[in-house]
C-alpha cells in the first residue's frame, strides 16, 4: 500500500465538511463518476472515523469514492491535492476540438462524432500513469464505434457446445420447470419442459504485431483488441515482436487507456513471428483448441527464420478452428503480400484481409471473415520471395 504524508490535515477540520462537499465535483473533473450519494456516504464516514487519525479519513473516503483499480490508484494524488493542496496536479478531463487530420492519407482514421468533441478522461494526463509513455494507446474516439462493428462480427463465430451439452444423447427433461408447469393442471405433467443448454462462448486469440512498422496502426489495433474483450467471447490478447506477451488483463478494462512501455519491457525491437507463434503454442497451448479462432495482426515483415515460421503456422493451423490474418498494408496501392512472411503464411490461413481503420474493419466484417470454411484450407502455391533468401527473413526498415 502506498503511503502519503497526511500531516497538516487535522488543521483543516473546521472546514472539513465543506471540503468533503466539494470533493465529489473535484473528482468528477478527473473522470470519477460520483455525486451526492457518495458525498452523503463520505459524511457518514466522517462521523465514524477518528479525525485525529488523518489516515482513517483517507481510507474511509477512498473506499467510498474509488470504484475501480484505476480510481483506487489515482485517489491518493487527488486526495492530497484537494485536502492538502499539494501533490501532483493531474490533467483534468477536457473537451477540446478534434485536431484536423484530413491531410493524413493513411493510418488510423479519426471519426468525427456529432459533437466534435473528444474526452481525454482516461488518457494518461488524468490517470495514475501520468507521464507514462504508451507502447499502444487506444484511440478513445473510436472505441465505441469499433465495438459496434465487432459486435456484428460476433454472429460469425461458432459457439462451441456448453459444458453440460450431451452429444448424441436425447434432450433431458427439466424436472423443475415441468413440475412447476404441472401445478397449473392439477399436478398432471401435461407439457414436458426440456432442458435448454446454453452454448459456450467462442474462443478468440488475438495476436498483435507491435514492431516499428505497425506503429501507425497501433491505436486502432488496440481499440480492436479492446472491443473483442467487451463481448461474450473467451478472448485472449497477445502482443509480439521478438517475443510474445499476454496482455489480456491490460486491455480488458472498461476504460482502456493503452499499454505502457514499462509493461512491455521484455519485448525488443524487430519481428520474429515464428518464434512468437512457437511460444504461443508452447506456453499457452491450453488456449488453442479445435473451436478457437486465431487472429494475427501483422504486416508480415519477418526477421526470423522462415522454416520456423512455416512449422509454427502449420502446427497452429492444425490445432485451431479458423485463422485470419489481418494485414493493414493490403489496402495500400501497389502493395503485394509477397514478402517471405506473408508467402509462407498464406497456405495456412483461412482469410487474409486488409484492416487498418474503422471502415476497412466494417468491410471485413461484412465479408464474413470469421465464418468458418467447412473445406480444409486449399494451399496456395508457394511464392518464394526473391528478395529474401531462405534463412535470412525480411529486413524491416522501420524496426
Amino acid at each position, binding site marked *: 500500500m502506498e503511503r502519503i504524508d497526511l500531516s497538516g490535515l487535522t488543521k483543516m477540520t473546521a472546514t472539513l465538511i465543506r471540503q468533503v462537499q466539494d470533493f465529489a465535483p473535484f473528482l468528477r473533473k478527473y473522470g470519477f463518476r460520483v455525486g451526492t450519494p457518495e458525498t452523503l456516504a463520505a459524511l457518514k464516514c466522517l462521523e465514524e472515523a*477518528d479525525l485525529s487519525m488523518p489516515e482513517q479519513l483517507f481510507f474511509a473516503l477512498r473506499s467510498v469514492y474509488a*470504484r475501480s483499480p484505476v480510481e483506487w490508484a489515482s485517489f491518493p494524488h487527488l486526495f492530497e491535492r484537494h485536502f492538502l493542496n499539494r501533490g501532483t496536479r493531474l490533467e483534468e478531463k477536457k473537451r477540446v476540438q478534434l485536431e484536423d487530420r484530413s491531410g493524413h492519407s493513411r493510418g488510423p482514421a479519426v471519426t468525427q462524432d456529432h459533437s466534435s468533441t473528444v474526452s481525454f478522461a482516461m488518457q494518461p494526463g488524468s490517470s495514475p500513469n501520468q507521464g507514462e509513455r504508451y507502447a499502444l494507446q487506444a484511440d478513445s474516439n473510436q472505441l465505441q464505434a469499433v465495438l459496434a462493428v465487432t459486435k456484428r462480427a460476433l454472429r460469425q463465430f461458432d459457439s462451441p457446445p456448453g459444458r453440460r451439452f450431451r452429444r448424441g444423447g436425447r434432450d433431458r427433461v427439466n424436472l*423443475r420447470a415441468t413440475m412447476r408447469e404441472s401445478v397449473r393442471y392439477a399436478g398432471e405433467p401435461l407439457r414436458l419442459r426440456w432442458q435448454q443448454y446454453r452454448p459456450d462462448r467462442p474462443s478468440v486469440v488475438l495476436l498483435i504485431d507491435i514492431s516499428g512498422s505497425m506503429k501507425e496502426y497501433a491505436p486502432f489495433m488496440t481499440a480492436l483488441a479492446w472491443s473483442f474483450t467487451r463481448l461474450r467471447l473467451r478472448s485472449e490478447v497477445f502482443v509480439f515482436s521478438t517475443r510474445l506477451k499476454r496482455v489480456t488483463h491490460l486491455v*480488458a478494462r472498461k476504460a482502456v487507456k493503452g499499454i505502457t512501455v514499462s509493461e512491455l519491457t521484455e519485448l525488443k525491437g524487430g519481428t520474429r513471428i515464428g518464434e512468437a507463434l512457437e511460444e504461443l503454442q508452447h506456453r499457452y*497451448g491450453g488456449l488453442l483448441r479445435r473451436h478457437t479462432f486465431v487472429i494475427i495482426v501483422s504486416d508480415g515483415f519477418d526477421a526470423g527464420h522462415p522454416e520456423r515460421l512455416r512449422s509454427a503456422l502449420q502446427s497452429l493451423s492444425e490445432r485451431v478452428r479458423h485463422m485470419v490474418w489481418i494485414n493493414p498494408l493490403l489496402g495500400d496501392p501497389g502493395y503485394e503480400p509477397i514478402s517471405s512472411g506473408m508467402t509462407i503464411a498464406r497456405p495456412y490461413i483461412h482469410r487474409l484481409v486488409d484492416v487498418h481503420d474503422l471502415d476497412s474493419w466494417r468491410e471485413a466484417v461484412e465479408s464474413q471473415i470469421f465464418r468458418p470454411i467447412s473445406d480444409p484450407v486449399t494451399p496456395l502455391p508457394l511464392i518464394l520471395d526473391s528478395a529474401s533468401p531462405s534463412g535470412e527473413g525480411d529486413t524491416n526498415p522501420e524496426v
Partner: protein
Amino acid sequence: MNNHVEKLKKNLREANYVADEGLAMVLYLAQRLGRPLLLEGPAGVGKTALAKAVSAVRGVELIRLQCYEGLDAAHALYDWDYPKQLLMTRATLSGEAGNTAPDIYTDRFLIERPLLRALKTKPAPVLLIDEVDRADEEFEALLLEFLSEFQITIPERGSFRAAEPPTVILTSNRTRDLSDALRRRCLYYWLDYPSVEQEAAIIALHVPDVAPAIARQIARAVRRLRKWSLLKPPGMAETIDWARAVAELAAGELDETVTQLTLGCLLKTQEDMELVREKGLAQLWNA
C-alpha cells in the same frame, strides 16, 4: 474510534488473518454503515479468507454463495418445493388433506437459498458472495435490491426484510467489469498482493515452524515469481503451502534442491514450471 479499528485488526490476526490499517478501517466502516464491501484484486490474495476471518471474529455463521455463469434466482434467492406442492395438491384432490383449498405458497414449501437465508438468520451472519464477476449481468441486477435494502421480494409472499442486516462481502477477480449500479451500493477495497513484510508475517502466522529468515526468503521469492509473466501467479495459499513443504523437507533451509522438489506447491501449470526452470531456480532461492 481508533480503538475499534485496532481491536478489529487484532481480532482478525487472532483469526489468522493479517489485515493492514486501511482494510481494517474499511471493514469497520462497512459494519457500522451497514454497507456491503466489494473486494477486488488478483486471485489468491485473501479475499475469501477475509470473510471467513470476519465470521470467526464475530462468532456468527458464514453463508457463502459461490457465483458461476448461469446462476439464477432459483439457486441464489429461493425456490419452491415443487414435489411437496404437488403431493399436497393431489392429497387435497383425493380428500386426504381436507376439503379446503391448500395454500401451497407458505414457508413449508419455501426452499431458502443463501441470500434469503442470510436475511432470516439470527444473529446476522456474514454473507460471502464469492467471485461475483463469474455470474451473468442479469444476476447482478438481481442483487441490487438485496444490497441496497437488504430485502428480497417473493411475488407469492411479499417482501422479506432483514431484521438484522448481514455483513455482506463481495469478491471479484475482475474477469469482467461489474456494473456501476452494483459498485455504487458497496464500499470498495482493492486488495493487492501483500508486501514482503506482510507476507512473511502471514507465513509466520500459518507456519510457525519456519524460521523468520526463511519466511522472508520465501516471501521475496514469491514476489519475484509474481513479476514474471506466469499463467497462474502464486497466491497466498500457494505461498503457505510452499512454506509448509519447506518446513517439512528442509528443516529450515531453502536451497535449489528443495525449491526444485517443492515447485509444485507454487506453480500449477506445466508452462509456468518450464518458464521458471528456463529462468533458473537460483533466481528464486537467491531472491
